[in-house]
């Protein structure tokens, strides 16, 4: 499980990435209710949704420092 760095909610990475269907031309589609993510400094960070990701992007250092 991953942890949303903004709200602290646990995110199941496998569920967030799991294919639920395919687009007309063969790309995987996922369930938007399972969260989203961002490729940041070479790795994926998971979020419960766009709001938390937006907060993160406004100030990544706030959420990535120890």
């Amino acid at each position, binding site marked *: 499980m991953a942890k949303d760095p903004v709200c602290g909610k646990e995110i199941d990475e496998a569920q967030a*990435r799991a*294919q639920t269907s395919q*687009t*007309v*031309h*063969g*790309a*995987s*589609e*996922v369930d*938007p209710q399972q969260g*989203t*993510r*961002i*490729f*940041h400094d070479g790795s*994926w960070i998971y979020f419960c949704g*766009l709001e938390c*990701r*937006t907060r993160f*992007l406004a100030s990544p250092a706030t959420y990535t420092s120890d």
Partner: protein
Amino acid sequence: MDFGYTPEQETLRREVQEFIAEHVTDDVLGELETAEEGGRGVHYRELIRKVAERQWIGISWPKEYGGQGGSRIEQYIVEEEFARLGIAVGGAGSGAPAILAAGTEEQKRHFIPGLISGEIIFALGFTEPQAGADLAGLQCRAVRDGDEYVINGQKMYTSAAHYATHIYLMARTDPDAPRHRGISIFLVPMDAPGITVRPLWTIQSDPPAPIGTTYGMARTNETFFEDVRVPASMMLGEENSGWYVGAMGLNLDRVGASRYLISVRRDEDIVNWVKENDFGGHSPADDPAVRDKLAELWTEAQVCRLMTMRSMSLVERGGNFTYEGSAEKVWAPEHGVHTTETITQILGPYAQLLSSSEEAIENGLFAHNVMGAFQSGINHGSVQVMRDQMARRGLGMPRG
């Protein structure tokens, strides 16, 4: 200087109108209301095949790649008539002009005929969550590995991703170079392993926006790339030249009927509505305030049209085309917003009734337009970015 059409061009317009009356059936219009294939179902594809038979797609594109080698203004006439119904005939978007300008011979022969026939559809993969107006801040990475590039990252507002065959993707290939000089463009098949599409539903999805709504896209997406491998031959232009290739394509895509009509279609609609409706012997067309506002909109719309014609003339003559498209991209969307405000004033509370209301005017077209018009000044290059380009390229000011 004559801005009118020649008799031959007027004949072409009538032919297109007659074709549309015969072939754009309720089945085609019904498909346009669906979001799943971007409205491009079996009836739509059959329509495009017939349009291609008439040699009306890619009129100004080179014959060797499936075009007609004709004039840009004739292409504009055809595009305008179809765009009034929300139908883009062939190669809409910035990918095709970028390929024609910067692509290899192999890329041109593969992609351009497919874009003309509708068999190839691009999703635009430029914007990222943290890189929209500041596009040069994009972080999607492409790393060379032998004859391939490996792509990791994500794109935002990839509105065609759920029905596109390819994504026209901007990625960073040199993270150590100055921001604008370390970017490349790739033409990536959507079925490449590692691509994931996450749907995002817009304010136009529920209730659904009626056909013809400006920026009426019910669905957009974010698209993720995890170790996606693409052959190096699918890079468009030279490595690290993607910023300039992409900007050139975007500029050329700002010229033409679709972009023009996005901002002025509602002008025509509200004028028709005002003239056609009567409330107990009182027509809004008799109201001096309404007449004044509509005349003001008409004047602004003429500026949109003249800017469009000038840009097409520049393109036709192979002229240097840079800030002129930016000026259009400022004037036209801001006019569209002004039109929306005016319609809201004329219709009053009826301008708030969406398609789900039985009392909505024109099936809620104007109300859905209120929700969508404002984004036209943001997407495809915000008006603020466009003004900065005009200051630098048109007025010779330094980069801020």
